């Protein structure tokens, strides 16, 4: 294989189909950027799960004196008694799935609330005796929430058992939906990219039919005849992959570190690092290289007689 000969043929082919090549590059770049974005999004979800599931608790909210007026039967007798509290604490400690139990007074809850909501109108209407006392239970396995819920939900003096994960799950399912949407759009873009490549190969095979005809007659191997076409597609795809990599890097840079600077604004979330982005780049490049090459070789079967 004479590298220089093949390279010059590729250069000629790409220039001849400049507009088509550009379309291939753009569509491959977009689809791969979406693909990489979806990968990063699912990694972000996992990172957040790891981060949050360590910190979230199951909260057992206890009845306060106001709850007697609500129609919750377990609170029918008014505020929780000291005896009930001791019993709950003792029972929690007995459960093997419980790691730690932390008691939060109504006063502490009020302070936290004030911290979170500050001087907003809602915060001003809240008083300490409206807040509930609660047990914050940390489980060894966050998935076992249901065990705690069924044990304490209907007990006298317990207002409500709540898994804080519920709040997060909403966020995660939103992010998952975004990831799925990105993958769907990626699939469509990829189909478009493949169709463009097939068309490019067809045009290019037609415009080079003299050359390929002669190559066939003088005994060029089919590999040698098809190579320039496949390399053309692979080269355009690789460029598209490189552009996609650029999108991913810029995306991380502008969304998290600078520009939108989410890392500064949303400190509660741990964001994926640069290493997460870097590890996706080889995959993106490899797909950018291989998919167009495969599409081209399939197209050649149809449009190029060898």
């Amino acid at each position, binding site marked *: 294989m004479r590298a220089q000969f093949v390279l010059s043929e590729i250069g000629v082919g790409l220039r001849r189909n400049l507009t088509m090549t550009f379309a291939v590059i753009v569509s491959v770049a977009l689809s791969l950027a979406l693909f990489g974005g979806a990968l990063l999004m699912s990694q972000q979800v996992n990172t957040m799960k790891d981060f949050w599931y360590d910190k979230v608790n199951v909260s057992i909210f206890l009845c306060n004196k106001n709850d007697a007026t609500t129609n919750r039967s377990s609170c029918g007798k008014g505020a929780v008694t000291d005896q009930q509290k001791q019993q709950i604490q003792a029972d929690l400690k007995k459960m093997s799935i419980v790691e730690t139990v932390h008691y939060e007074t109504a006063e502490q809850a009020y302070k936290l609330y004030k911290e979170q909501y500050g001087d907003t109108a809602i915060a001003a209407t809240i008083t300490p005796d409206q807040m509930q006392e609660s047990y914050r239970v940390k489980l060894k396995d966050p998935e076992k929430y249901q065990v705690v819920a069924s044990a304490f939900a209907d007990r006298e003096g317990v207002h409500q058992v709540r898994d804080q994960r519920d709040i997060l799950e909403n966020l995660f399912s939103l992010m998952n939906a975004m990831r799925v949407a990105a993958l769907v759009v990626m699939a469509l873009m990829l189909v478009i990219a493949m169709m463009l490549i097939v068309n490019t190969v067809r045009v290019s095979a037609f415009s080079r039919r*003299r050359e390929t*005809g*002669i190559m066939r*007659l*003088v*005994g*060029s*191997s*089919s590999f040698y*005849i098809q190579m320039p076409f496949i390399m053309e597609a692979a080269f355009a795809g690789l460029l598209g992959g490189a552009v996609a990599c650029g999108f991913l890097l810029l995306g991380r840079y502008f969304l998290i570190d600078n520009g939108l600077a989410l890392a500064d604004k949303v400190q509660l979330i741990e964001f994926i690092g640069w290493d997460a982005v870097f590890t996706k780049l080889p995959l993106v490049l490899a797909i950018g290289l291989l998919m167009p090459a495969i599409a081209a070789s399939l197209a050649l079967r149809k449009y190029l007689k060898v």
Partner: protein
Amino acid sequence: MIRFDNVSKSYPKQNRPALRDVSLDIEKGEFVFLVGSSGSGKSTFLRLILREERASTGLVHVLGKDLARLSNWKVPHMRRQLGTVFQDFRLLPNKTVAENVAFAQEVIGKPRGEIRKAVPQVLDLVGLGGKEDRMPGELSGGEQQRVAIARAFVNRPMLLIADEPTGNLDPQTSVGIMKLLDRINRTGTTVVMATHDQNIVDQMRKRVIELEKGRLVRDQARGVYGYQH
């Protein structure tokens, strides 16, 4: 060199077979004219030798190989031992004379040094020394056909297939091309040439094979074009 054993070839959607029960032998070093009117099966005959087509029945041997049993990926290697020349020259218009000839070697992966040596040699042989850097469009028809012959011969094939090489040329130019093909034949290369050119066939007095409606109707050593035309 070439052997046909009871070869027939039919194309789909055509009632009459293009070749019907053709048997013949062409020995190494022979010069053979293939004559017959249009549609007589000459093209099919050549396409079978090049293995552009496969015989429907019968056996085709070229260079000692049974083409029916030759696997597809070996076909290119078989074709490297054949040279082909056509009526329409089939040169690449955007390459110079030398590049056109070199192309035939580049695409089969010949080393650059070998190409640089072989191209001027073969251009000298066909009488185009000094015109290496011309474009095909600047040459006369006869010169273009010489380039095509140089390209077919640069890999030193055992067998040269020529499909009406003088079909687009005036009689005087044709004579020059025939002299060239004769010279190539004298180097030991077998030449099979399909033609309609009565004068040439009659002058050369080589073996003549005549096809008519797909049948072999005449195989004559030192023959002439025909009796009634």
